[in-house]
């Protein structure tokens, strides 16, 4: 096996896996902090119960996000050393800043939040969770700035003497136009994912409790979580779509091949139609059956209904003139600058489709539960229980689309993926790494899901007077800890 293949598989597996947990951490930290704030403001213990219940799920999820993040920090050096040498001057800075600003903030204040229930005044304790959330946002900002630079390198000079890209304008890297649309797209999608997670769980509980007594304390609490969550899914979903629309236009401008690949558009069209689905040859060169919406692709790519969208064949010629004949011999024949079209075509559709489906389910749920209604339908139940998976997989699809769509480049227009891999690491070593990490991640996934299900089933613990947190004084020195591992 080629080390390049193995390194690519490892990056794909570890990154997609890592990003299953990251959006929930980003979104759920805000929601848990919000529940806690609502409890502090209203004194309603339902919010406190939700804080504790979703707080536990948040921690189970966050832990995997953290430990799989360690691999992300080091695998550039391990598997992609030539990439690291080439881009370190630009790409390393946001990574280092991410560690200094985000990781310290998240880990320290999460420790304070977990163990601080009876050590810190209530408002300060709540502030700790908000700071964790702020840490997740910093983290997202800097890592996305690094990724955006790979999509659209700016603020650098190529130094032929050292053979590497050197940063000349830090602000340009931080406020890259790709970054300015990617960050809101990803963060809103993270809120949407976490809210969908909450809604799926809360509605499952709501259904069980309202079957007994729709006016009970329990039903009221799960209803609150269900409806607030569904609103967040809907509103952030609209935001994701709106920002995604702008993002599509920026992408068309800086990576036209990616937009053509999203539609598997071989010939330039004006106006261009968007196909909802296509059945064609495996390489997507010929279509046999397609359901299309006229002019939609023109609108997505250019913002007008009669804009011209360049096709793959024309772009291939343009790229060949700009970048030369050889994009890296391993996957690409001379002059071929085309990513894997079926992958980009379908991931693009699944990303959008799952996102819209989630918004549809959330709308339906809001309608069905309006003004105290307690819907008992089977179909809604199934749809809502499946809701958490929709944004979750939409995220993966989005990332696979944008990363595969950039190929053959690692850094667009500058460095190919084939040239990025570590020359000194053998295929055997890489295979050991790939197999080990895949096995470990696989086992952890099973453990994590079973643990989540146990805690989800268990429900929210009731709060008694004695449970209400109060800051411990020196007289309480012998009391058990409010929370312990």
């Amino acid at each position, binding site marked *: 096996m080629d080390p390049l293949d193995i390194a690519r598989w490892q990056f794909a597996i570890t990154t997609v896996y890592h990003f299953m947990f990251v959006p929930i951490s980003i979104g759920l930290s805000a929601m848990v902090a919000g529940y806690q704030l609502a409890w502090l403001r209203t004194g309603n213990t339902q919010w406190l119960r939700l804080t504790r219940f979703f707080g536990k799920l948040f*921690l189970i999820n966050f832990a995997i996000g953290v430990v*799989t993040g360690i691999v992300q920090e080091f695998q550039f*050096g391990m598997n992609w050393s030539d990439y690291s040498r080439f881009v370190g001057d630009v790409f390393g800075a946001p990574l*280092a800043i991410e*560690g200094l600003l985000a990781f310290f903030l998240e880990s320290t204040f999460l*420790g304070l939040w977990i163990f601080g229930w009876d050590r810190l005044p209530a408002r300060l304790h709540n502030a700790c969770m908000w700071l964790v959330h702020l840490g997740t946002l910093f983290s997202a900002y800097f890592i996305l700035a690094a990724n955006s630079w790979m999509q659209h390198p700016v603020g650098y000079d190529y130094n032929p003497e050292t053979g590497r890209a050197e940063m000349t304008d830090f602000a340009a890297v931080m406020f890259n136009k790709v970054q300015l649309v990617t960050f809101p797209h990803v963060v809103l999608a993270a809120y949407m994912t976490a809210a969908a997670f909450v809604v799926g769980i809360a509605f499952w509980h709501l259904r069980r409790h309202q079957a007994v007594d729709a006016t009970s304390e329990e039903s009221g609490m799960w209803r609150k979580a269900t409806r607030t969550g569904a609103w967040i899914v809907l509103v952030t979903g609209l935001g994701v779509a709106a920002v995604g629309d702008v993002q599509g236009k920026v992408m068309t401008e800086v990576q036209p091949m990616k937009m053509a690949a999203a539609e598997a558009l071989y010939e330039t069209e004006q106006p261009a139609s968007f196909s909802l689905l296509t059945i064609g040859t495996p390489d997507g060169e010929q279509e046999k059956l397609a359901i299309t919406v006229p002019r939609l692709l023109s609108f997505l790519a250019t913002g007008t209904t009669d804009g011209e969208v360049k096709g793959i064949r024309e772009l291939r010629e343009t790229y060949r003139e700009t970048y030369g004949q050889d994009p890296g011999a391993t996957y690409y024949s001379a002059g071929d600058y085309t990513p894997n079209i079926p992958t980009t075509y379908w991931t693009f559709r699944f990303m959008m489709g799952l996102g819209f489906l989630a918004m549809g389910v959330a709308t339906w749920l809001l309608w069905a539960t309006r003004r105290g209604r307690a819907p008992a339908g089977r179909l809604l139940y199934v749809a809502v229980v499946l809701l958490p998976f929709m944004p979750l997989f939409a995220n993966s699809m989005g990332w696979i689309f944008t990363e595969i769509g950039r190929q053959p480049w690692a850094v667009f227009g500058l460095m190919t993926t084939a040239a990025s891999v570590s020359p000194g690491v053998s295929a055997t070593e890489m295979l050991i790494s790939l197999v080990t990490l895949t096995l470990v991640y696989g086992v952890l996934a099973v453990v994590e899901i079973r643990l989540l299900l146990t805690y989800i089933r268990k429900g929210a613990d009731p709060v008694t007077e004695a449970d209400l947190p109060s800051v411990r004084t020196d007289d309480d020195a012998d009391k058990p800890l409010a929370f*312990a591992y």
Partner: protein
Amino acid sequence: MELTTVWFALIAILWMGYFALEGFDFGVGMLLPVLGRSDRERRVLINTIGPVWDGNEVWLLVAGGATFAAFPEWYATLFSGFYLPLLLILVALIVRGLAFEYRHKRDDATWKSRWDGAIIVGSFVPAFLWGVAFANILRGVRIDADMEYVGGLLELLNPYALLGGAMTLLLFLTHGAVFVSLKTDGPIRHEARALAVRTGVAAAAVTVVFLAWTQLETGTAASLVAFGVAAVALVAGLVALLAGREGWAFLGTFVAIALGVAGLFLALFPDVMPTTLADGTGLTTTNAAATAYTLKIMTVVAAIFTPLVLMYQAWTYWVFRKRIAVHHIPEPVLAGQGS
């Protein structure tokens, strides 16, 4: 001072912080089967580091990120070169980190003993391998003219490196035992103290041999001073422990580890990864560095945020300053829900 020197120093400080902080939580992890005989005792041990271990580990991530940004060539050569040992460390850190969070989430003996295993192995492996890795960096390895590591895996397991591994392992073990004696109460505190003295003597012996060897091979006047202070701090810490002064003892092991690491970096400077090949290109603070512009940006960011981080991390230790004893440990969650 040159910015490359500043960043060499900053990276040294990050590793000093990492080893002095995560060193004790590696130690606590390794001591789990020794000091924690009952489940409650093991929970006491884990809870001494519960609120802080993750923050301690971030020092490593920031050291990694800072190396990537300030010395990209070093980051590339080191992590692609020491590939399998690093993979082992990563896997150890993954299972260990998860173990702290997941162990208490089921009241089930099998579940807990598996995670205990993950904590113990996950603490031993990096405690040993970090020493091996740093010794090899100091000693020099085979790096070719393209800055690629061309030595094999077995080459990393030379006597000097193994001694380095033994040193970090024993130091962290001692540091952890001292930390437990400082942070707990009851029988566990006294056992930890007695154990720390025993491992401390072994650690001191190995440390002195390793540091002397290093000093003879690559030492400078500055590294000699750092090594000297480290050795004195270690011995003073052990004496303080015998006198029952656990706080001073912890300061002693903390300073010993931090200054020991400082000495290693001083002995390394201005190299960052020397080569043993005549026609190879060794990495130095100059030829491995990022541009002056990047270093300047990073310096500004570090100057603003590092003091802030130090302040809130110190505050965490203050918030959780109380000792923990067996009677502080609440009943297990999910009691009776084993599976």
